[in-house]
């Protein structure tokens, strides 16, 4: 009896394993195509920018200020510097406030005030960026009586805060209670534990959230229109109107001049590259302190 049965059984095994392999292949293929579908638009955007922008990209573009209409050459150096200044101001304001609020929500925010902050952050996240520009105009520009890098920085900071807040809250909540208890058990006070243990444990996730917020606002144009305003000259004073890459791209792109159109493409390429470079640099620096085996 046994021979026939084992034969049958092994045939069954074989068909099961064939079936499994087919499914496995199918799943791998599906996942692979999903990856391609995600990468395709990204690659297309970047490829097109390189194609259109690389021609006008040269040393002059990176080191000179714009030339008057009709004159060839010139560049966006002042806009690159202005973007750096505005983003610096935005980060100095937005990162501490966002992280602070996120930590508060995660550790002490199980109350009415916490719910209110969460609600506010979510609403703020959905407010159109042009509206945030108007708000910054109202609270900074009207008071200073002129446009400024500070006003642009405030507008972008307001946009960064909700993203950073919610990301920080989520990351801090992921830190197990056991880790906090370990610190309490050593006689470490609650606020010290929050800062030196809990936040530190969540840090790599928090940094990811910060970089996400940074990359998002780095390309914003609308909130800068009537805050930083733009400038054709160099400016390092945060109380003066300042050029910014997205603004410059916008102005050049809607102009009727071919030369300016080409420079707008180059500006867009530079903007993307700078965002990628700064995000990678932060990740690299943050990752360097990482220990073997820590997550």
């Amino acid at each position: 009896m046994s021979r026939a049965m084992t034969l049958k059984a092994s045939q069954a095994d074989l068909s099961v394993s064939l079936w499994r392999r087919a499914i496995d292949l199918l799943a791998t293929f599906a996942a692979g195509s999903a990856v391609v579908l995600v990468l395709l638009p990204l690659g297309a955007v970047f490829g097109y920018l390189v194609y259109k922008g690389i021609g006008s990209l040269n040393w002059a573009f990176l080191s000179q200020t714009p030339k008057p209409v009709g004159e060839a050459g010139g560049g966006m150096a002042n806009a690159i510097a202005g973007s750096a200044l505005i983003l610096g101001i935005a980060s100095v304001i937005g990162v501490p406030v966002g992280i602070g609020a996120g930590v508060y929500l995660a550790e002490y925010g199980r109350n009415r005030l916490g719910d209110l902050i969460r609600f506010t952050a979510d609403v703020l996240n959905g407010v159109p960026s042009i509206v945030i520009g108007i708000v910054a105009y109202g609270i900074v520009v009207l008071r200073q009586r002129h446009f400024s890098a500070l006003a642009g920085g405030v507008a972008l900071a307001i946009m960064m805060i909700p993203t950073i807040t919610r990301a920080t809250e989520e990351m801090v909540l992921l830190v197990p209670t056991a880790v906090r208890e370990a610190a309490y058990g050593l006689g470490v006070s609650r606020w010290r534990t929050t800062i030196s243990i809990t936040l530190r444990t969540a840090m790599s996730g928090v940094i990811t959230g910060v970089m996400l917020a940074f990359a998002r606002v780095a390309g914003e144009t609308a909130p800068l229109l009537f805050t930083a305003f733009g400038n054709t000259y160099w400016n390092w004073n945060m109380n003066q109107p300042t050029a910014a890459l997205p603004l410059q791209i916008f102005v050049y792109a809607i102009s009727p001049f071919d030369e300016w159109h080409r420079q707008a493409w180059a500006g867009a390429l530079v903007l993307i590259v700078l965002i990628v470079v700064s995000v990678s640099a932060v990740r690299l620096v943050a990752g360097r302190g990482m220990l073997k085996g820590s997550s």
Partner: protein
Amino acid sequence: MGVDIQVEHLNAWFGKTRAVQDITLKMSANHATAIIGPSGCGKSTFVRCINRMHETVPEARVSGQIRIGDLNVYNGTSATQVRRRIGMVFQKPNPFPTMSIYDNVAAGLKLNGFRDRRQLDEIVERSLTMAALWHEVKDALRKQSGASLSGGQQQRLCIARALAVEPQVLLMDEPCSALDPISTSKIEELIFQLKQRYTIVIVTHNMQQASRVAEYTGFFLLGNLIEFDKTEKIFTNPSDKRTEDYITGRFG
């Protein structure tokens, strides 16, 4: 040196449920006391009352008195002050995941403002040696994260971390429940040595372990202390029927 722990009429609540009911007992200096009992009977809750960890749980509440030497735990002092005198080792190893082995051990001192690097080095080495971990990790102290060690090594790291702040009392809540027999026996040996300097309270589900390491044993049931006596007496000739049923494996 160790100090006596005197517990009087201790009650502990989670919201409305009372998890620990009117416990009175004395755990003596430089001895190990084992706490045994079925799951959910309040052993962890009881131990967590001793270093005021219970009150970190939302809605949790405590009444009664605990004295550790001359320190009145629930009166006229702060929770952090109490916890600096009491080391705690948890059931699941909980090293600080982003810290190196060295920083894990030094954490208690550093976070409380201790800065002398030479002395820190010494204390870290001494604590790791006491926890029988020094030889396994001495070459990776600053390179490797605490989380990269094996479970048994992590638990010994947590013990070293607790010892580094030189507490008077060591609370251990099922320190071996996640460990293999070799790590377990290492930790038991350790408890044996630590007794000379500390007062030790150890929660365990393992009766052999209780009888190996502890001079005194308390048997808990449904939040009550049923019997507290010399370990030998509890395991050979208990006076309460429920204790006898439990240790002979008739329930729980």
